[in-house]
């Protein structure tokens, strides 16, 4: 059986600097995988190559058995790859529910100009019901009508999760979800994510700095350093690996670039 996400031999360089050096990563359906590494290790570059924001110099990305290397960002999203952002990206001047509504509408692809003109483009009751279901699941029911400018960062991140969920993803890419959150908020976020995941059954690929969060949240992890995969395996073992410890804490010369 093939994995849900298969990235094979991803290579990317920026003006001669090798950001990713033949990286292979697999994510199976329903599993939770971490991708860790010090600053500048190439995590975000890898992420962008999977999402199609960057084109890798060589290598193949397969999703659900299909080669998606040539697809554009929004086409990959439609294949079932959802994501959140490190620095939250929400739609200004919209309420929380509107974020989910537009995602729901896009998933069905039923928006047409003539429907808008005939007044059929307004939110339908069944759409609103589906959005509210997800909002309840995330604990955002009380702020459904609030404009996103009035949310806390933690709530904003949950809105991103909810928006991604409305596209019915098979894989959710989380880009440093704990950044900007304190310990308690991080723990709450992890609990909510776990709850939603067990209900919806999607896979998660987590890029994260917070080793503690990764240790508690993921089963398996990959470790990148200077664009090269230096370790992979069950998260707890990986984190004990002396090479990994050196990459993170080790000699000053290799520290954060």
């Amino acid at each position, binding site marked *: 059986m093939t994995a849900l996400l298969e990235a094979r031999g991803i290579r990317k360089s920026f003006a001669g600097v090798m950001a990713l050096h033949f990286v292979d990563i697999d994510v199976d359906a329903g599993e939770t995988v971490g991708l860790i590494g010090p600053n500048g290790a190439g995590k975000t570059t890898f992420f962008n190559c999977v999402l199609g924001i960057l084109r890798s110099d060589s290598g193949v990305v397969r999703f659900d058995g299909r080669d998606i290397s040539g697809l554009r960002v929004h086409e990959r999203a439609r294949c079932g790859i959802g*994501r959140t952002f490190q620095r939250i*990206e929400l739609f200004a001047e*919209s309420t929380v529910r509107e974020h989910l509504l537009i995602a729901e509408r896009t998933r069905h692809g039923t928006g047409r100009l003539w429907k808008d003109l005939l007044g059929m483009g*307004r939110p339908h009751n069944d759409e609103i019901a589906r959005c509210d279901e997800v909002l309840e699941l995330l604990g955002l029911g009380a702020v459904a009508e609030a404009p996103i400018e009035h949310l806390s960062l933690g709530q904003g991140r949950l809105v991103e999760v909810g928006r991604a969920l409305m596209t019915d993803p098979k894989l959710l890419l989380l880009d440093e979800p704990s950044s900007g959150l304190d310990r308690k908020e991080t723990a709450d976020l992890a609990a909510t994510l776990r709850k939603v995941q067990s209900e919806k059954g999607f896979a998660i690929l987590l890029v994260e700095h917070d080793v503690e969060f990764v240790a508690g949240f993921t089963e398996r992890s990959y470790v990148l350093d200077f664009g090269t995969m230096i370790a992979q395996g069950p998260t707890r073992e990986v984190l004990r690996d002396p090479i990994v410890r050196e990459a993170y804490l080790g000699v000053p010369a290799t520290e954060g670039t």
Partner: protein
Amino acid sequence: MTLATGVGADFLRALLQGTPPGTVYALVALGFVLTYKTSGVFNLAFGAQAYVSAAMYYKAHTEWGWSIIPALVLSVFVLAPAIGLTLERLVFRYLRTGTSVAKLVVTIGISLALPNIFELITNFKGVVGQTPAGIVPNGSGVFYDPFGVYPFSRDELTTIGVAVIAMLCLAALFRFTAIGLQMRAVVESPRMTELNGIRSDRVSAVSWALSSTFAGLAGVLIAPRFNTLAAPDFFNLVVVAIAAAILGRLVSLPRALAGGLGLGMVIALLGTFLPRWVDSNPWLRPFQENLTPAVPFVVLFGVLVLWPAIRRSREVSDPLSGVDPPISSLALATRSARSHLIGRVFTVGVLGTVATIVYFRADASWMFLVTQAVIMATIYLSVTMITGLAGQISLCQGTFAAIGGFGVYQLATLHGMSVLVAAPIAAVIAAAVGAVLSLPVLRLGGIWTAVATLAFAFFFDAVAIKFSWVGGGNTSLMQGTRVPRPVLGPWDFADDRAFLVLAVVVFIIVSIVVVQIRGGTIGRTLRAIRGSEVAAQSIGISPARARVVAFAVSAAIAALGGALLSIHQKNVNYGSNFSPVSSLFWLVLVVSLGARTIEGAALAGAAFSIFDPLILRGTIFGWILRSPKRVPGFFPISPKWRLILFGLGTLQFARHPEGAVEFWRGRTSRWLAARQQSAPPAPDEPTESIGVDGAVTS
């Protein structure tokens, strides 16, 4: 005459001929890139700055009789840097966190306001039918022919010399001075420079002064090439400069220089060789006659379509973007349902009263103005569509409107179709043109849309309308582009009153279309893209597709309005209605009053048509004081104030993109809400959204 003949000599002659304008284009391109890189401002006001210096030189030298040197010093080395510094200090320093599109809109406003401010202060009236003097005596009368191929006039040689000196000075400044080094650093990475303790506002001020001087110099040097001295000619200069600068991806100074020079030569080469093909391909004639606007357009679109690297330049991300402050939230709709309703009723009531008075009491001239206002409001809904909803700046709405007008002219007058059928067909044609036009710039968005549409507007203005299947060719020269008024059943729209009703009906229908789109899938999709393009893509939205739709709908609305305007005036009147400069003014008007709302478009329509006669000529005071004789003596105010006022009105766009109307309405309702809170609470106030009022008033 030279003795050399043959293709080789022609080629050489064209290259030499293209050198003087090429060096001026290079100057403008350099100045343009300089401000863009050091302050992120895509300065479309560059042409206006060049015009002001050229006009100042003319005023001092020709009208006041100053000798050349003091006139040159005043116009280029005093006035030009002063304008640059003023703009930097009073305007752009406060817009640093604004988006590049917001800054672009502000520069458009300035480019309309600046020439008028200058003309008001110095009482300068544009020069027509006289070639402005150059900066050497008898510049256009003495010739030198160093290569025996092309005789340079004294003006041309001076142009080359001065431009080369200016560029050498710039190079020396960059190379040998501290401020030059800092400027280079800012060009490389503004943020890193600032983190290293260099005051980037000082660098920015210097580069504004410098680029403004370049603009002024270019203006004075290029002026003798025109046989008039008027602001629109100089606006075209900006388009040429952008085309030159784009070859260096808007960031490379050497490439901008090469681009400017190259463009000058290409224009001259085509000017030499194109006539040989025109005889066998007559459709080339409009190109040949208008190379200066046509070539930049072709270059610009060629680059956008054929050079994928320009698109990839967006991939360059700032490594420190994570530490950016969050974008300030917009003034939200904080109105309660009741005040919303009161506002609506009030608006409808006022409009109804005005409509009734106009319908029954107005004389022919007021009827004309009010009808025009309603039609302009319809056209402005196209700006609401593309700028308000899609967040894109289109500078060719006038061109789309012209397509509507010419479409009706062609279909109705030349092919005998009913006007009422022709107008929708023209709208569909414009929609197709808009969609095709938007294709190369779709993935770029932002300033590129503005640039591409601006180039298209000038191209249409110079070349396209000369084709007989567009502007009617020789027929229209003899008879004008006449358009009949329609008759529909019992209604004869030749009657002005009936036509006013028709205009109002069309406006209402188009308003409903815009409101439906805004509330429907497309409006929500566009709002998502405007909010965050990456996030919109992450849920499967294709920004390109949504923008094509927005562009096409906007073009169709503009064309419908343009058709209506032409029917109203019984003639297309391209020059006075739809020129590229009028597109700019439309955008400025709608943006400063409110690009997001129907009311904004309606007010902009009124402002376009009625502001001048009602306010500036003081008529309204005559009505209030019940006698035209008691109107204060300072009326009539110069109509230039309209351009100045609304041009400067764009300044608030960066911080309040919803426009003046929404802004003041928000203020008022917040003030009312605050008063209500100090008074005993009103029972069961229905609110539109939970938690909004509390957050605003707390």
